[in-house]
């Protein structure tokens, strides 16, 4: 430990730069030691404890640092191009839309959007169902406590992790591009996404299951298949239904916007009305959407609560 009591002496024969470097190093080290000493508490019976540094402070600093960097990246660079007055002038564009949605609320429009809305809901239901149907067997295959081969389970989990990171809308965009527009691709996109997230949620549960019951039923003379059906399936069914409903809730919302990329449903109308500034119509759609999602969510919550 270098001598911290006195700063390094400036020696005629030494380079200025070395002196500066050493001074900085001296001050730096002294600071740390002093802080360390400041955080040291000596109790009345002589025992001393050093208070740990607050880790919260550390992460807060990281947060501030990142924020600063990102704000610079996005916000500052924006205002370098667009003058602030212009921005302020355009704010009414937003508030305008909101107020027009309320004032121009076009209720007679309602019957015309029933069919697209039904399409949207059907897409979500079918997509969830197909996705769930595939998710269950694959989740079993991905579970380490059911499948011996670690290679297989890890490969499946890896593929699943790719599938579930892509949002439904992106799948829909790609599929629409490949196969043309329509609700069918909406269903497929939803199915793929559901398959991705549901499998993960399922295998996480399966891996916590107690397989003792399986051994017990098998020992009574049942075949492996029957033992599996009788002991494992009942343990997972409730969770499976619950998680499928949860995925359905997510899918209903995603379904509403799939139309934007051409996958059918109500999404395409949303984009249309935005473009043509028909905010009254937009308001009606949004209101209906609100009601439908509210109803579906509550039914789904109710069922899920009943299951557990």
């Amino acid at each position, binding site marked *: 430990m270098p001598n911290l009591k006195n700063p390094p002496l400036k020696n005629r024969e030494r380079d200025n730069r070395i002196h500066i470097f050493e001074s900085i190093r001296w001050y730096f080290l002294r600071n740390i030691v002093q802080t360390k000493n400041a955080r040291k508490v000596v109790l009345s019976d002589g025992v001393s404890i050093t208070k740990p540094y607050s880790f919260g402070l550390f992460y807060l600093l990281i947060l501030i640092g990142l924020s600063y960097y990102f704000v610079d990246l996005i916000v500052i660079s924006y205002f370098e191009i667009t003058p602030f007055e212009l921005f302020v002038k355009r704010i009414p564009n*937003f508030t305008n839309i909101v107020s027009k949605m309320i004032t121009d609320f076009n209720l007679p429009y309602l019957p015309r959007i029933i069919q697209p809305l039904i399409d949207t809901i059907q897409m979500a239901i079918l997509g969830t169902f197909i996705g769930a149907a595939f998710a269950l067997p694959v989740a079993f295959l991905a579970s380490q406590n059911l499948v011996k081969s670690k290679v297989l389970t890890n490969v499946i989990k890896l593929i699943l992790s790719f599938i579930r990171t892509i949002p439904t809308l992106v799948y829909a965009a790609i599929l629409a591009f490949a196969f043309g527009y329509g609700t069918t691709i909406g269903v497929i996109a939803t199915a793929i996404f559901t398959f991705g997230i549901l499998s993960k949620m399922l295998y996480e549960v399966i891996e916590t299951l107690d397989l003792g019951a399986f051994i017990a039923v098998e020992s009574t003379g049942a075949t492996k298949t029957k033992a599996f059906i009788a002991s494992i399936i009942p343990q997972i069914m409730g969770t499976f239904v619950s998680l499928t409903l949860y995925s359905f809730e997510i899918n209903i919302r995603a379904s509403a916007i799939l139309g934007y990329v051409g996958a059918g449903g109500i999404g395409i109308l949303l984009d249309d009305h*935005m473009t043509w500034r028909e905010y009254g119509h937009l308001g009606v759609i949004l209101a209906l959407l609100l009601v439908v999602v509210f109803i579906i969510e509550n039914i789904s919550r109710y069922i899920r609560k009943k299951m557990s």
Partner: protein
Amino acid sequence: MNPDVQSMYQKRPKTLARDITLLIFFTIVIVWSTQTIHFDGLNPAGIVISRSILDALTKPNLEWLLNFGEGTSIPKLMLETVAMAFLGTILGAILAIPFAFLSARNITGRFASFFGNTLIGMIRTFPIFILGLMFIRVTGPGPLAGVLTIGISSIGMISKLYVEIIEDIDSGIIMALDATGANSFQKIRYGIIPQLTPNFISTAIYRFEINVRNATILSLVGAGGIGFTLTAALAVYRWVDAAAALWGIVIVVLVIEVISNKVRSMLVSGDR
């Protein structure tokens, strides 16, 4: 037969009728839903395209994917996307605080909290990309619109989770502080805030994960980020470029997921 056994047998739950009805109901719902599909057979051109895309996934455009400098740089685009999500989440997390306190039953009472919760519900159901298009009218296309959109839209879910946290506050701690003679400020500072902060932060991080995906979605409607690159690449049939964009999304989302899970479990367990 033993009479106790007999009576127990009579008491058995007779759910068969109910179960069958449910099964039939679900079958009907599913069959009804298939009405929406018009299956004209798979467009052969579409199959060729899908196969090309899947194939391209194995050889993405590494020049774009690993480019950290000038030109089309997937890392930079993903950084922009993540930045959108990050700032948007912070904005939403801060704005959600007053909403949440106003909607918590143990703070404002049943009537006001119901009103607040409904408002939060409405924000949650507002389709994020409409919000995005609306903000683009103000800021023009670009990530700033994304930040504002994610910010406002996040208020919905974050407030809801905050409300749950607030309603879960252990008032025993407050009472204990009261007993030691603490004043209101101290009670808040030492009693309430420590209960709320870790969970608030955990919620924000959870929402951040979701927002990275939302940012990807918004980037498809023009709010900056990687979406435009993806659709542009598809439009000119450059599969390897599109694949590079997809890989960019996957890698970043997974990395963030891992980090986020780690940090959140650290928050919960109290480790450093």
